[in-house]
């Protein structure tokens, strides 16, 4: 580096200060923070690629099986299937970003610089949460819509899809009418009609994006509470993946009673578009979403309390 002399540079005088530093500046700052580190791009890129890509692969496979065995057409929920990779894997990817948004401040020590610049911690925390929620919601909606549309394109030839613009009729039941010959599927008669309405599809696509955003906020809140990246991510995985598996091992009547109280259930309900397609032991879409939202709000609130209370 060249020799530096301070006299070479004149700093311009600052404009007079009016009011006080508040949420507006903090929001701009948090947006700059989010857009200026690579992990944001990695996470959002991975969210898009994995959710849409795996969704397309799954739907490609479904297209084959729908053609090969028409029994699969009965009650086929093309919307949900196309969104499964998004709300099962994508939630984890965005959860990592949610945790990192706050834990990276602690792991790098940046938190001390951030809170020196803006010591009103409630404002910093709120700005961080608002910016992260906004960015996540936008990307979750894009991912959800694209994953749905790509998925529908994959099964277009079977005419067994769903549409955002009109009602689609699919067979309700498949009746086996005789064994199939060697190498060919059993004989099947399709009976009844399920109507998948455009509004239900829209609810599923938008609702799944909201669900994933809520999971991201759960991760954000856990990040603020735990303050360590690995610990926060492990806890998110535990809450969203491990606990549901443990619940599966419980006796059936217990399982049916308690699984609606866990935050992962909403994803499996909100994405359903076929009548009667959901789990009868879970609540319907929005009540189940409220359960997840309660986790998000609760953890965000505990995180906010600890963010303000503890030494940085």
């Amino acid at each position, binding site marked *: *580096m*060249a*020799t*530096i002399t*301070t006299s*070479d*540079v004149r*700093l*311009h*005088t*600052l*404009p007079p*200060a009016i*009011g*006080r*530093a508040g949420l*507006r*500046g*903090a929001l*701009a*700052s*948090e947006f*700059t*923070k989010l857009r*200026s*580190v*690579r*992990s944001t791009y990695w996470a959002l890129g991975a969210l898009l690629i994995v959710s849409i890509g795996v969704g397309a692969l799954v739907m490609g496979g479904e297209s084959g099986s729908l053609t090969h065995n028409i029994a699969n057409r009965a009650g086929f929920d093309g919307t949900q299937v196309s969104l499964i990779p998004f709300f099962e894997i994508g939630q984890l990817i965005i959860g990592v970003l949610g945790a990192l948004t706050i834990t*990276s*401040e602690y792991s*790098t*020590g*940046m*938190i*001390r*610089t*951030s*809170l*020196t*610049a*803006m*010591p*009103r*911690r409630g404002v*910093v925390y709120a700005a961080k949460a608002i910016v992260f929620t906004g960015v996540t919601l936008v990307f979750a909606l894009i991912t959800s819509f694209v994953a749905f549309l790509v998925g529908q394109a994959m099964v277009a030839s079977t005419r067994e899809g769903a549409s955002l613009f009109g009602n689609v009729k699919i067979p309700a039941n498949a009746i086996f009418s005789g064994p199939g010959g060697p190498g060919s599927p059993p004989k099947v008669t399709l009976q009844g009609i399920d109507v998948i309405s455009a509004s239900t599809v829209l609810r599923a696509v938008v609702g799944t994006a909201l669900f994933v955003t809520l999971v991201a906020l759960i991760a954000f809140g856990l990040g603020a509470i735990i303050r360590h990246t690995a610990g926060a991510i492990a806890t998110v995985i535990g809450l969203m993946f491990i606990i549901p598996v443990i619940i599966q091992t419980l006796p059936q009547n217990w399982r049916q009673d308690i699984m609606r109280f866990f935050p992962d259930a909403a994803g499996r309900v909100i994405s359903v578009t076929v009548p009667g397609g959901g789990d009868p032991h879970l609540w319907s879409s929005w009540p189940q979403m409220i359960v997840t939202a309660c986790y998000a709000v609760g953890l965000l609130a505990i995180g906010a309390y600890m963010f303000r209370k503890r*030494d*940085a």
Partner: protein
Amino acid sequence: MIEVRGLTKRYGAKTAVDSLTFGIEPGKVTGFLGPNGAGKTTTMRCILGLDYADEGTVTVDGKSYPGLAYPMREVGALIDAKAVHGGRSARNHLLCLAQTNSLPKRRVGEVLELVGLTEVAGKRSKGFSLGMSQRLGIAATLLGDPKVLMFDEPVNGLDPEGILWIRNLMRAMAAEGRTVFVSSHLMSEMEHTADHLIVIGRGKLIADCTMREFIAGSSGASVRVRTPSAEEFVRAITAKGATAATDEDGSIEVRGMTTEQLGDLAFSEGIRLHELTTVRASLEEAFMELTASSVEYRADVPGAQQPSTTIGSGV
């Protein structure tokens, strides 16, 4: 103007800062001295509201730090140069800080140029040397053109050029009427920069005085006299109640009298003098003397009473 009153901070059972009271005056470089672990960084963290004080208050211009309208316009603080997200470029790092206090964006370019980081402004700070990180940290403190500057061990790990640069910067800032509060465990560093000293040890205030008073107040201050009639002069000095010791090279070390008094004495006694010099105790010596009892981690001599308890002092 920073005022610390009765500040106490405990971490579990350990009291890091113990009812500390002092004020920092504007237009001066105030050195904050103490051995490692004395509580300097904790005090600064409490001033900035990063850590919450258990007892006592800290005010900046009469307000608590979190209550300042635009904190960056009041105080520019650098506690840890490595407290940045290494994945963020220098420019974006400064931008996100400037935005919190609604400071104009062009200010970022200006402070980058001031500290000489313009060429690497787009680079991620992960790859910065400690010297570059220090410059980035100092750039951040200057963003808001603050009245108070606070640096914690700013010259740690810097090369001589960097040390000189920071020293000049601090002097220039104080000359502009700003308050400069700088901590160090290196006395030699303070000797060249500070006007005023606050010395702490084990979280307690040891001294709060000007640099001159600090050095004069130590028992090391003495006057060296060389004269052909040493014996006669020593007798005259001791008759005046001061102490005089003859060194190996024949010079006399006098304590308890000033050069003026000694010159007058020699004149009235008709004694020729070849040398009359104030020997200022170095700040280092004065500091060692003051803090001898308050060094937290003492390195015992191996083989003495407690072998194998040598503790390296972390920086």
